[in-house]
């Protein structure tokens, strides 16, 4: 347990100490929220879908958690390049525990970043339908955070440097985000897109967040929770396995 704690603590310390990075990484959600939110707002309204900022905010929150979580996981490549990874790999601690500590730390960081964006959304004019359901929203954010930190760790375990990183971003992370329904409603989209979205784990996270924050959704809260829990468990398993096989 102390091993998990110290690895978790290390991630938190690294996050809190890199204030420029915290601020910089808020630029993207802010841009999405303001440019898309106010830009598409009138069209969305005219199409009879209501306030776009209301619709978009949960998507942008999920996006922030997704990106921060993936980066936290992929940070493992830094540790490998700077040599710190070796220090943890020779320690007399099962590698699964090391992976779990890292992942929980990274997920906590993603969660904190997500909470900052929740506050920003509220400042921009987003209104939650029921504050009593906020814990449910945090639950979905936490699942998304753990899931994608585990995915990032799994990916970083098989990459030895940043050369494959661009590939991962363009062919995995970006599609996960754009196909999740974070930016548009999944009702009435072409069938192919609907099928693809239903295979996208983030879609269930975005949907869960919308249900918690706005009271409306696509898949239903139970479905969202079950799918996310299953995929999170699977990715933790896969990440743990790949991490335990790292050779340096």
């Amino acid at each position: 347990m102390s091993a998990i704690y110290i690895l978790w603590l290390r991630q938190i310390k690294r996050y809190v100490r890199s204030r420029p990075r915290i601020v910089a990484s808020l630029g993207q959600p802010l841009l999405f929220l303001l440019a898309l939110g106010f830009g598409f707002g009138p069209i969305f309204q005219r199409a009879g879908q209501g306030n776009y900022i209301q619709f978009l905010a949960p998507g942008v929150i999920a996006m922030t958690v997704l990106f921060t979580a993936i980066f936290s996981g992929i940070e493992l490549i830094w540790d490998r390049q700077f040599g710190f990874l070796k220090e943890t790999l020779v320690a007399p601690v099962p590698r699964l525990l090391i992976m779990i500590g890292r992942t929980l730390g990274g997920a906590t960081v993603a969660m904190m970043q997500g909470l900052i964006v929740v506050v920003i959304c509220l400042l921009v004019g987003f209104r939650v339908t029921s504050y009593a359901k906020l814990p449910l929203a945090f639950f979905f954010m936490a699942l998304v955070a753990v899931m994608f930190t585990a995915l990032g760790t799994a990916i970083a375990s098989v990459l030895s440097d940043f050369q494959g990183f661009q590939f991962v971003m363009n062919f995995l992370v970006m599609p996960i985000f754009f196909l999740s329904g974070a930016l548009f409603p999944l009702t009435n989209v072409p069938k192919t897109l609907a099928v693809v979205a239903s295979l996208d784990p983030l879609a269930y996270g975005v949907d869960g967040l919308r249900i918690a924050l706005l009271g409306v959704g696509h898949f239903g809260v139970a479905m969202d929770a079950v799918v996310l829990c299953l995929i999170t468990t699977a990715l933790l398993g896969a990440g743990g396995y790949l991490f335990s096989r790292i050779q340096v």
Partner: protein
Amino acid sequence: MIRVQNLIKRYGDFTAVADISFEVATGEMFAFLGPNGAGKTTTIKMLTTLLKPTSGHVELDGLDPTTHANEARKRFGIVFQDPSLDDELTAYENMDFHGVLYKVPKRIRSERIEQLLKLFELWDRRKDPVKQFSRGMKRRLEIARGLLHTPKILFLDEPTLGLDPQTRNQLWTHVKKLNAEERVTVFLTTHYMEEAERVAQRIAIIDHGKIVAQGTPQELKQQTNSETLEQAFLALTGTTIREESAGSADQMRNMARMFRPRQK
């Protein structure tokens, strides 16, 4: 304490370690010497569970690190050849992190951290992040960290590279003390022959992945009719500078490096 039999490590066509066997007795200080790229670090990585051997058998305190990795890891401590600190954490935090992972009880941990940081003259800088440290200071911190828990076997992979004579002296005094008082087995590599001669009871010389000679410093000198260990070393491994020779083995090594940037 350490037993290695017919150990081989291949990367594709390139053989980094070609069928080596040796033993290190409990409480012995054993120097593993060889030119750059001879296979020293690869061997240490296989001994310390970081790398899986292609074939052959390794035993640490009777345990096979490939099948009982975690038990084996409890037996040893290591100072790596290349950097292994977290630059964003302070010196103290790096030490503490290590202590927690190795389950050093809290009270002993803070005592030993203070003692070691003072010994290596880093105590005044303990609250500074490591990224502000010079190379020599980082090295000192890594050595202090490697000595924080008392393992049965201590691996020192070129620990004195880039250190001033004062720090080298501190290091070896401390390591010798550990060896004498707590019977810690020491496995070290170095390029400083006089250092190896001074601290090691037995020496193995590796070149191109093969062990070319083994014995006490005295035996190696007699075997080659040399006055110093340095002469014996050159007699055994030749005078060619490895990085500059462009033999086929080196080209292969470069290829292997290109495809596996982190594996040496």
